[in-house]
Each structure stands twice: as C-alpha cells, then as structure tokens.
C-alpha cells in the first residue's frame, strides 16, 4: 500500500518512463501493450517532452499525462494544447495527482503560446468526464462527429 506521506514530484516525461506507463495502463485496462506506448511516447518526445508530465511518488512513476501544442488543424489557427492520454495508478488515486500533472502542463502550454486546452472524452465514461470537469473543462462549441464505416466481410477492424 502506498505511503500516506509519500514524496510527490511532477517532472517532464522521458524515454525511461515507458515501462511505468505500460504498467499503469495495464493496471487500469488489464492489457499489456508495450508497443502502443513505445509508439506514443516516441511521438510525444519528439514533439515537446515538457508538454508531457509524470508524477513520481518516492521515485516511482504512478501517474502520467501526455499533451502537445498544435495549430492549423481543423481550421484552428490559434495554437492550442491537446491532452490526449493520462492515467493514474489505481493505488494512488484520490491524491490530486491528476490535478498536479494538469497544472504543470497548462503552465508550460501557456508559456508556449497556447490560448486554450482541449481534449476528447467518452461522454459515457463519467469517471473521466467528472475528473475533467473538476479540472475546469467545459463542453466546447466544437463537436466531435463521426461515421462508423462498415468493414467488408473477413476484414478485421483495427
């Protein structure tokens, strides 16, 4: 069980955090998928490592949040931050680590010229949407739209 008085530190992501992120994701989803995280972390590290943070408790990574700064997509010319993935080790929930990660990222994105921070979440996942609301996220006038495409028989959906 985690220490009540653990020493918490939030710092930028680095390539040696992949193992810890894989472990946290596995604890949350039950799926071991190192390849997915190798690819994602590779992506974020070449964008801007400081826009992504991990939370350490007594030197062990127990939470992460991955974000980057984008401009010029979907007609959004103004630079904006996008938070794509985050996860907190279930043993370390309820300690505001998510907020600490978020605040560090927002400070960095702001300094980098972001005018807003966006994310996409499944409306049905109230645990996630509740967490985002507590951070200050509100529904955006932008709306995510999609069409489900039927796969030809025999072809696998990725």
């Amino acid at each position, binding site marked *: 069980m985690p220490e009540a008085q653990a020493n918490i530190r939030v710092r930028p992501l680095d390539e040696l955090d992949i193992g810890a992120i894989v472990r946290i994701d596995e604890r949350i989803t039950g799926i*071991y998928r190192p390849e997915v995280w190798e690819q994602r*972390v590779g992506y974020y*590290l*070449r964008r801007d490592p*400081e826009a992504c943070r991990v939370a350490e408790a007594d030197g062990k990574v127990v939470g992460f949040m991955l974000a980057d700064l984008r401009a010029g997509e979907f007609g959004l010319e103004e630079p904006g931050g996008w938070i794509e993935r985050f996860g907190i080790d279930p043993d370390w929930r309820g300690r505001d680590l998510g907020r600490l990660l978020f605040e560090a990222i927002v400070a960095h994105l702001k*300094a980098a010229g972001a005018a807003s921070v966006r994310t996409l979440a499944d409306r049905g996942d109230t645990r996630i949407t509740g967490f985002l609301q507590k951070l200050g996220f509100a529904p955006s006038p932008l709306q995510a739209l999609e069409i489900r495409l039927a796969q030809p028989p025999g072809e696998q959906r990725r």
Partner: protein
Amino acid sequence: MKVHEITLEKKYHDAVEHWRRHNFKDYELLLENWDRYFPTDERFCLCAKLELGTSDQVQVGEHRGEKKRVAPDELTEEEARHLLGIIRAQASTEFGSIQQHSGTLERAHDDQDRFWVLRVMAEELRHGYQMIHLLLSQDWSKASGGVTGREMVEEILSMQTGNHVLDAFNLDYDSFLDNITFAALIDRVGKYQLTMQKVCAYRPMADSMPPMLREEAFHLAAGVIPLRRWAKRAAAGDPFITMTAIQHAVNKWLPRGLEMFGDERGGETNVKFGFKDMKNREAQDLYLEEVRRMIRDINARFLRARFPEIGAEQAEQVLADLERNRGAHRGVRHDDLLRLPDRRFFRRKGEPAFAMVGVDGEAFTDVEEYLRHLAKNLNEGYVASRDMRNYAEALRGVAAGTLAVADAVKKMPKLKRVGGTCPCSKGVRWVMEEGEGAPGAPASGAGA
C-alpha cells in the same frame, strides 16, 4: 518557450551545407520523407535557435547574482578560453556523431529505426550549426590565441572520425546496434552536459540549451525504444539479435560515455566560472544511475516477452531475484540479461584509467588475461579494430612499468587530417600527437 531562429552568414551556412553533402548523404531523403515518418511535426530547420525569456542572472559560481555575460570580452581571459574549449568540443561531437551514424545506417532493420536515426543526425547537424553560430557571432580572438572564427569553423568541419576532441566520437560503428546504443548512452551524456549548461554564465550558450535539450529527448528515445524492441525479439529467439550482442555494445560505449564527463576529480572550474552547475563526478553518478534504470527497463521488456503469462510485478520479482542470486529462472540465466558494467571497466581516461577491472568489477593482474576478458566481452569487429590495438599496446606498457598512466592517456593516436578544408579530400593519416587531444580540449566534456 519562445525561440528566436538565426541563420548564419551565407558563406558559413554554405560551408555547413557543403559539409552536409559530403557527410550526410541521406539528408534530402529525410526531408522528402519527413511527413511520412513525422506527420504534423514542425519541418526541420537548419538554423540556430535561442530560447527567449530565460534568466539573465548568473546562477552558480563566483559571479552568482551578477548579470550574465553576453560577449566574450565580458569574461576574463581564462574564463573565455575555458568556455571556448567547451564550445569547440561540443561542436566537434555534433558533427562527429553524424559521421559515425552514417557508416552503418544502411544496416537498420526497419525503416522507422532508420528514419529516426536520420532525424537524430539532422538535429545533430543543427546543434553543430548552433555552436558555429556561437563561435561566429562574437569576437573570440582574445581567447583563441588569434585563431579567427573562420579558422575555427574550418577546423571543426575538417575533422574526421579519429580526430574529434572526445574519444567517443573517434570510434567507428560496427553495426546498426551501435547507432541505437550510441543514441541511448552517448546522447544521454549530451543530455547531462546540456542540462548542466542551462545555467551558463555566458547567456548565448545558456539560451542555446533548451531547444537542443528538447531535441535530445527524442535522440534518447531513438536509442531506447529500438533497444526495447530488440530485447523483445531476442526473447522470442530471433537468431540475429541477442542480449549478448546488446551487452557487448553497452560494454563498448559506456566507458567512453563515462569519460565524456571529464576526470572524476575535476569540473570545479566549470562551477566556479558559472558554466555548469555540477562537477564531473556528481554528474557521472547521476548518469550511471540513469543507465542502471535503462538496463532494468530493457531487461523487464525481455522477461515479459519471454514469459507472456507473468505480470509486471512478477517480472520485477524475477529480475530482482536474478540480480541477487545471479542464478537462473526457467531457462533464463542472469547472464542472458543486460547488466551495468563496472564504472572502472575498460577505462582509458579519468580516475580508473588503465586499471584492469572486468565488467563485473573483478580485478585482473595479468594483462593478457585482461585483454582476453575484453575480447570476450566486446564485439568481434571492434576487437579487431585499430583502436583496440592501440589501447592494448598502451596497457601493456603501463603494466610493464615502461609507460606512466598519464603518458598512456596521451598516447592514444588520432586520425589527423592534413591540408585542405574539404572533407572529401583524402588527406588523412595516422599521427601521434604531442599532448592530449585537440587544442582547447576541455577539462570536462560535451556530448551530441
């Protein structure tokens, strides 16, 4: 995180482009395929980048609290000479690593690995360009003994593998494994140097660091992520990739990486002058701890691939047991995993220079036995190299008492270019140099 971009005066920009055409042939290929491998990333810019909004106060050393210096004339002559040594060494490593990466790039196992390394090379080119900007944007003649900026740039662009300021940049790669191990270990030294130099009392140097560091983060990923994948393939029994081969590459590069920090007993001057915020041993200790973490991470990747049914915690337990007992677990021996070589292993500079210490810290008294130990723990191509022959010769001299360690350190021959500035001229030959390294070799190092 706002950045000011600067292009060199045309003739110098052209000189770097000329060097690039000779030493980095796949540069155009990288740019043509940029969107394929790095979609939505900013296009590559061959320019110097200076971070805006950084501190203008000296943070460490005897000038702490004073205003940062913005021209060499504001430094004392000794400080300026010292800093010039750091900048030239840094420039040399940046260009040097491109030449090294080029040699074995074609042997990359897949295109993504190859394009990642190509991007690393382009960014090293930009780092070299950045250092040239620092040399040319101000008058360093007081510190350079009259050597002009133009001459310093010529000297840097004419270096070939063999006469770079730091030894890690004088070693050829033997396979693509060297490309990724170099990125994982030697670029990591670079990360430490750049991080320490963020405080530099010479502001243009300090402001050069953050953009370089952001790029460096990807260089480390371009080493560690392929190594993780290779460990997985080794676990699956791929006959062409083994943990032993990876270990041999680690054994080759780690000692050179440790030496790039400079002598363990030194680095005080850097702190005193406010150029770096750590002494050599302090930084080396942190580096070593980080490499230990990296090796553990790769080992865990290996174990989970070998035993898909075990979870993260169990894998960590197995790892801890194997490290402690040096035994075996269901056919995986301790020797099948990577391990951190002893910091005194295969050293030729610094405190343990020419000490005969094995990978696991075992002491040797017989030179020939030690050389056989090295041959067993390094890859064949490297063992057969000229670099190893020179080292063995010096070591035999030290052991026989005919050569002092200090002289052995200086004795490593360098490949020196003679005449001309175009790197395509073949005027290169082996020469023994008086004294250690190139002029201005710093008491502590740099890194790509």
